[in-house]
């Protein structure tokens, strides 16, 4: 290249650098200048007014005018009077005197676990990695659990990985992950690189729980205890278990057929008897028990909550429109 040629090339390069700098600065300034969305506020209610005061259903409201999903609740005896809030929960649950809302962090770079007390005051915000999928709380509100999808270090590594974290709701801290548990199958400890846990449901003693463990191509129902950090497999092909109020049955998704289709089933824990439920559609949700005879779930395809008899009879009927992530809340003072 001639010297003149080099000069021209250098000038072109310098010009490009200048152009890039200007464009970047303009972009930064323009973006910063945009009005930021209002910080997510306070949804606290007066004592006796909130969902913990009387039998209620707390859910993710899909009816919000601006299109985003927020926490809402209704009284079980008056499903028409929906109370909407501005808390953007991706997934939520309530039990005992506490609530857990997995929501985007204010800076939109991750998710946080927002813990609420009985009057919906925020007690703790705990960031967690990944995208929330299932949320549950033990009956007395002591432990909260979130299952999140974790992506790999680069998007080149995005395998199907879940992480299930147990939180101390009063202290507002993560205690442990299920991944740290010692889980046994037929007496042998499971130790594979691809284990995934998800879908926890607690027993009434606030220590034991059921969950799903997946390894290889098989899913298992496991029963574990927070106090011992151990678990063991009980049954196969059980996803997202949900324990009935009387603690005797588990409602879950069972993989049927060859195309990744699920069908809701109920498992009798003592006899291991499986009963298919009357919902013919393949629905991806963790069941919530309305009472000992009825289960409830959110259907993504129509955005409504549906109810279904838990004994395999009857047909699905719409319970609440434009809602998802249901949590049935009965004040623990009542029976």
């Amino acid at each position, binding site marked *: 290249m001639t010297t003149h040629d080099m000069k021209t090339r250098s000038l072109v390069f310098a010009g490009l650098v200048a152009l890039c700098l200007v464009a970047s600065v303009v972009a*930064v300034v323009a*973006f910063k200048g945009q009005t930021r969305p209002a910080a997510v506020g306070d949804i606290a209610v007066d004592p006796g007014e909130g969902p913990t005061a009387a039998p209620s259903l707390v859910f993710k409201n899909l009816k919000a005018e601006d299109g985003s999903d927020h926490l809402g609740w209704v009284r079980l005896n008056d499903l028409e009077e929906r109370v909407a809030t501005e808390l953007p929960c991706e997934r939520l649950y309530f039990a005992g005197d506490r609530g857990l809302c997995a929501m985007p962090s204010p800076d939109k*770079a991750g998710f946080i676990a927002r813990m609420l007390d009985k009057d919906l005051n925020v007690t703790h915000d705990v960031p967690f990695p990944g995208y929330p999928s299932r949320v549950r709380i033990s009956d007395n509100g002591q432990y909260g659990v979130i299952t999140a999808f974790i992506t790999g270090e680069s*998007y080149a590594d995005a395998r199907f990985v879940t992480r299930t974290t147990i939180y101390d709701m009063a202290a507002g801290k993560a205690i442990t992950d299920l991944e740290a548990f010692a889980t046994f199958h037929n007496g042998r400890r499971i*130790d594979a690189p691809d284990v995934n846990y998800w879908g926890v449901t607690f027993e009434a003693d606030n220590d034991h729980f059921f969950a799903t463990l997946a390894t290889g191509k098989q899913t298992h129902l496991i029963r574990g205890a927070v106090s011992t950090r151990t678990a063991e497999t009980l049954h196969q092909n059980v996803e997202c278990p949900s324990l009935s109020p009387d603690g005797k049955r588990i409602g879950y998704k069972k993989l049927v057929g060859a195309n990744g289709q699920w069908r809701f089933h109920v498992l009798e824990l003592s006899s291991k008897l499986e009963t298919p439920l009357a919902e013919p559609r393949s629905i991806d949700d963790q069941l919530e028990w309305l009472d000992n005879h009825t289960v409830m779930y959110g259907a993504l395809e129509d955005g409504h909550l549906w109810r279904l008899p838990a004994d395999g009879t009857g047909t699905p009927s719409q319970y609440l429109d434009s809602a998802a992530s249901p949590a049935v809340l009965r004040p623990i003072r009542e029976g």
Partner: protein
Amino acid sequence: MYSVENLGKLVTTLRTARRQPSAKRVSRNVVLLGFTSMLTDISSEMVTTVLPLYMVFVVGFSPLQFGAIDGLQQGAAVLLRSASGFIGDRSRRHKDVAFVGYGLSALARLGLLLGGQAWVAITAATVADRLGKGIRTAPRDALISLSSSQEGRATAFGVHRALDTTGALIGPLLAFALLTLIPGSYAVIFLISFCFALLGLSVLGLFVKNHHVDQSGGEDGDQEEPRTSLRSTLRLLKTRRIGGLTLVAAALGLFTVSDSFIYLVLQRQVQFEVTTLPLLYVGTALIFALLAVPFGRLADRLGWMKVFFGGQVLLVCMYGVLLFMPPSRIQVGVCLLLFGAYYAATDGVLMANASKVIPASIRGTGLGLLATALGMARLLASIVFGAVWTWQGMDFAVATFTCGLILATLVSALAMKSLTMKEAT
């Protein structure tokens, strides 16, 4: 015949002697290629680190959806490496083929910026980026080798790798700095990423010289350059020198546990937060960047085999640390040190040496094929490692691979030694 050989060797020695003063200095072209890679890596790593966040939070994908998108592109890029090397050789314009690769990746950034939240645009952009990477690697390495002397070959590759890895370190830091200062500024990140890609492309286009003849005149001055064809390259693979080298590289790659698995093992042992995992990548990359040039120089001075197999020994030591050192933060640090050093001693050094024994006319194809062989060996290693882990547990898997690596290293070292001795006689 004897005298002609001697004459050829004499001419070569004279040629290299005349160029002696600059033989050890790294050529401008190599440094410029290094900067192209650095700027491009800043661009791509910025996007790579925030893309999952963007797709989940802004576009609303589920992690499974974008995992599916990404899985599609993995295979294509591997094969492209050989193809682009071949095209570079045939056209004798390695620079232009590399330009297409870098250009495609730059366009991919633009697509990401302008495509908004349309998942079609996002998918197309990530595919284009992968393809671009596959296209540019072999011609770029061919160009590095053609722009550097025989004596300074490993140093040249070391310089390039160091600059390349530095870019990979800056990218994520820049992206997270932007996200922290200006929350939700994904559009700004994509724009700045495009700017870096554009500047990297410009360095290549404006300042890098295209070479298609080995600047150092080659090792055997009287050896005829084979025609650029797949057949001649494959014939070359059958020769003891290059075939042997490829087999050695593949054999060692077969017992190399992938980065992700190593970090997973460490995480299981030490039980640190999953969010700390990216820091492990950064740690290894930092060591790699710092040691790439010194190890390259060492390879030029002491001979590639000492440094390369020394690097393999470092890897064995790292596996040993995984197995025997009690889990702690110090253990993690030592592992990263050994891992980064292993990369610095093997990655550039292997390519540098391979480039010395592959004639210039099929340099790109040859290097491309070597890269493909390595890639496939590593893929197989990952599958096997995962299977052994599932079957017999984590410690067993690491132990098996350590034994395999020791064996492979010993056999390869002996094989290469005897090969070199056979040639000397």
